[in-house]
């Protein structure tokens, strides 16, 4: 760890025209100190049961997170499919972080691979992901979309100043039938007491506008975030989070997603329990409970 820090200092000193990133690194050195650490996630075990009507399907689900040295190992298991993954992260204290995760899934229906990388540094945050599977991804894991083939996505945010943030999302899919689709969305968020977001997007030649609102509703810190996409594509997403104790260790979370043509999902989460109910032509229900097994909890 010390070696890494020394290298960081040397690099910062050798640069004649430091970029903003290097400057920020320098700032951290002086102001707060760099917290460079390659650490693992806390151990956790999530057990669940997911059921679906038409076609009828019932499966137990199991998700495990296990730190192993500098890496985090993940495993997930359901009826007829198993997934394993690993990830890691580099923490830069208040300056940001870099993380990555790769995962492979194998089931009777087929196989899938996915990779994700995220980075936040100063005014920039970005996330890239690439997924491929030779079957519908929800055959490999019930929480995934009913899509297969290739999916590539890029998500980014850039802070213009403390109050204004630009957002960009781009995606490309080439499904199992070989049909290619693209999507892009540009948004602008203004943070005052609340945050207002406006944006424009296109998804497979369907144009839509975006309106968002996020803000606290009371002194206790109850927070509502709502995003409406309307036009040739229509979707409403809303999340309400309310603290259940003063320390904010436990929250009650309610999630609603509604889109047209009709698909609705409702979620509720508190004290490690989580229930998700959905309708997308057929009803589904997923109950889960998460146990934190280690670390400092």
């Amino acid at each position, binding site marked *: 760890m010390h070696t890494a*820090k020394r290298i960081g200092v040397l690099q910062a000193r050798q640069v004649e025209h430091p970029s903003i990133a290097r400057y920020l690194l320098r700032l951290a050195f002086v*102001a707060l*100190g760099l917290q460079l650490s390659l*650490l693992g996630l806390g151990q956790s075990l999530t057990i669940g049961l997911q059921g679906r009507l038409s076609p009828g399907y019932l499966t137990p689900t199991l998700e495990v997170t296990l730190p192993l040295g500098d890496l985090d190992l993940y495993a997930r298991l359901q009826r007829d499919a198993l997934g394993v993954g690993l990830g890691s992260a580099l*923490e830069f204290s*208040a300056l940001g972080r870099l993380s990555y995760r790769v995962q492979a899934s194998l089931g009777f229906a087929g196989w899938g691979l996915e990779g994700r990388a995220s980075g936040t540094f100063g005014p920039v945050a970005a996330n890239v992901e690439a997924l491929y599977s030779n079957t519908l991804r929800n055959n490999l894991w019930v929480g995934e979309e009913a899509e297969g083939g290739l999916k590539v996505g890029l998500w980014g945010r850039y802070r213009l100043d403390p109050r204004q943030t630009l957002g960009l999302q781009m995606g490309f899919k080439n499904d199992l039938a070989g049909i290619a689709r693209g999507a892009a969305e540009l948004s602008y968020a203004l943070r005052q007491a609340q945050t207002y977001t406006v944006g424009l997007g296109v998804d497979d030649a369907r144009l839509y506008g975006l309106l968002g609102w996020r803000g606290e509703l009371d002194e206790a*810190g109850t927070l509502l975030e709502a995003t409406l996409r309307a036009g040739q594509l229509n979707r409403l997403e809303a999340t309400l989070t309310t603290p259940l104790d003063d320390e904010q260790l436990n929250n009650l979370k309610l999630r609603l997603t509604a889109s047209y043509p009709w698909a609705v999902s409702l979620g509720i989460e508190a004290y490690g329990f989580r229930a998700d109910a959905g309708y997308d032509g057929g009803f589904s229900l997923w109950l889960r409970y998460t146990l934190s097994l280690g670390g*400092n*909890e």
Partner: protein
Amino acid sequence: MKKLLAIAVLSLGLAAAQSIAEITRQVQANLDRSPWEATITGKIQLPDGSSQDAEFRLQVIPGREQLARVEFKKPAALEGNFVVISDKEVWNYLFLTNQVIIQPRAKARVEGLGVNLTDLGDFDQLAERVTLRLLGEQNTPSGAVWRIAGTPKDPSLGFASMEILVLKSDPRPIALTLRDSQNRVLADLSFQNFRRANLTPQVLRKRPADAEVLRRN
């Protein structure tokens, strides 16, 4: 004669040592008296000679279960980010991704390369990491101060020397300067708006309810 001189030098040295220990004790006792907050403003010098404004808000609850919060105001790119440090954990909040990364204190290595701002609220810890000595006294617009110089005990701390001004009438730091081995100023920070405040752990741990919590071991 030589003996006398040696004794005199030794006594002077002992007196100085006692005096810095006494100042450290007074500062610690003063800052431990009640929760307090201060704004830290100043300039951070870049290697090319240019400088950048920096502003942080530091809030400290002293005592057995000490808790500190550093909130970033400037530079603009970090506004809204904060760090909460307790005996056991370090919380890092990133505004842009709305994430709180919680790490055990032992692993998070808060001290890092520079001076840990919260050390200025915990002089005992600072004295553990930095060899302090009294340079003298001087008058400032805030009042008479002790000038204290410090040299890091661990050369990898990222600075070669530090100077702290400690207010005599109300023993607490009011300014801090860090220099590198070429005597260039790395940071020149002053403590403003120091006040005793009715801070609670809930206030210091405040975060957006919907922030994604990532626990790291």
